[in-house]
């Protein structure tokens, strides 16, 4: 029984660490790219204010591209964290007959 608890604890801790890395890297990447993007927008608008609407439109286009993969990563991480963790289920299934 203690063995099973140990195995489940191992899988859970690994899951939490991996989810933390996923969320952290995803938000880090978007934060970095959004700051670059916003800074460049301000620079470009300061240089040519008459283009600001066009630049704004392009900004949203690129913001969506930047945002997409971070959103996907965060969804995957939250699914692992709150949903039925398939890795944990597989481990429990495999370990159950041996431990009882």
């Amino acid at each position, binding site marked *: 029984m203690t063995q099973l608890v140990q195995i489940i604890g191992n899988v859970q801790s690994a899951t939490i660490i991996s989810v933390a890395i996923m969320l952290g890297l995803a938000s880090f990447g978007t934060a970095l790219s959004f700051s670059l993007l916003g800074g460049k927008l301000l620079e470009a608008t300061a240089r040519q204010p008459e283009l600001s609407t066009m630049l704004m439109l392009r900004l949203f286009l690129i913001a969506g591209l930047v945002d*997409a993969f971070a959103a996907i990563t965060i969804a995957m991480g*939250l*699914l692992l964290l709150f*949903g039925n963790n398939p890795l944990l289920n597989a481990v429990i299934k495999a370990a159950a007959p041996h431990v009882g």
Partner: protein
Amino acid sequence: MSFWHPTEGQYIQDHLMHYQLNLHTMTIGNGGFWTLNLDTLAVSIIVGVVFLSLFWLAARRVTSGVPGKWQNFVEYLVEFVQGLVNSSFTGKTTLVGPLALTIFVWVFLLNFMDLVPVDVMPAVLSFFGIHDFRGVPTDDTNLTFAMSITVFLLMIYYNFAGKGTLGFLKELTCFPFSKWLFPINIIFRLIDDCVKPVSLSLRLYGNLFAGELIFVLIALLPWWFQWTLGSVWSIFHLLIILIQAFIFMMLTIIYVSMAKTSHDES
């Protein structure tokens, strides 16, 4: 099946199931490859018919005098998309403008289904014996891939139509390196073109999947606390779905335009 009081993991799992038709036995259930996701089909077709008929109505009742509110809105939308097509698409076309408008409005409306509270549609339909109904069609890779593969076919058509077969073959083998490196050129081109539909569809799917999952997680909170996170995420998500519809349209225009123009014109 305890619909009203499931556990957390079970609740999330229930919301990620599709209402499927097995084409082998013509019964409800998963049939491997030969499966129709009935919920995706139903919602997307209903939304599409509503959108097209409303816009058709505006076109039927168009006046050159003082336009009504609806005609004004449709005109604004059409002119907005037409302007984008004119500025991003090289050359004249009568196909890409309507295509872009349809993609933009349809994808936006399909995404908008995500803002319907997550339990409304399943709860209403469970009274009619329909379980596991998933209300967001763009939250299904089948729909997003269907759309992006259609765009891909259009790209192939414009490759041949814009450059001719010979010009297309020339570009395939002699770009970006000289003709002596043609195997590498072909592999580059293959990767370049095949990544486009995959990224186009997975971007839309991933964003909507993330949005819906976070709505489902918010729905797991106690009822007196849901409105705080729910309203914040709804407002943010309204921006995201608009941007994703816009990106899908914009990239479609750009990809088709890139396929049509040849590289050695300049």
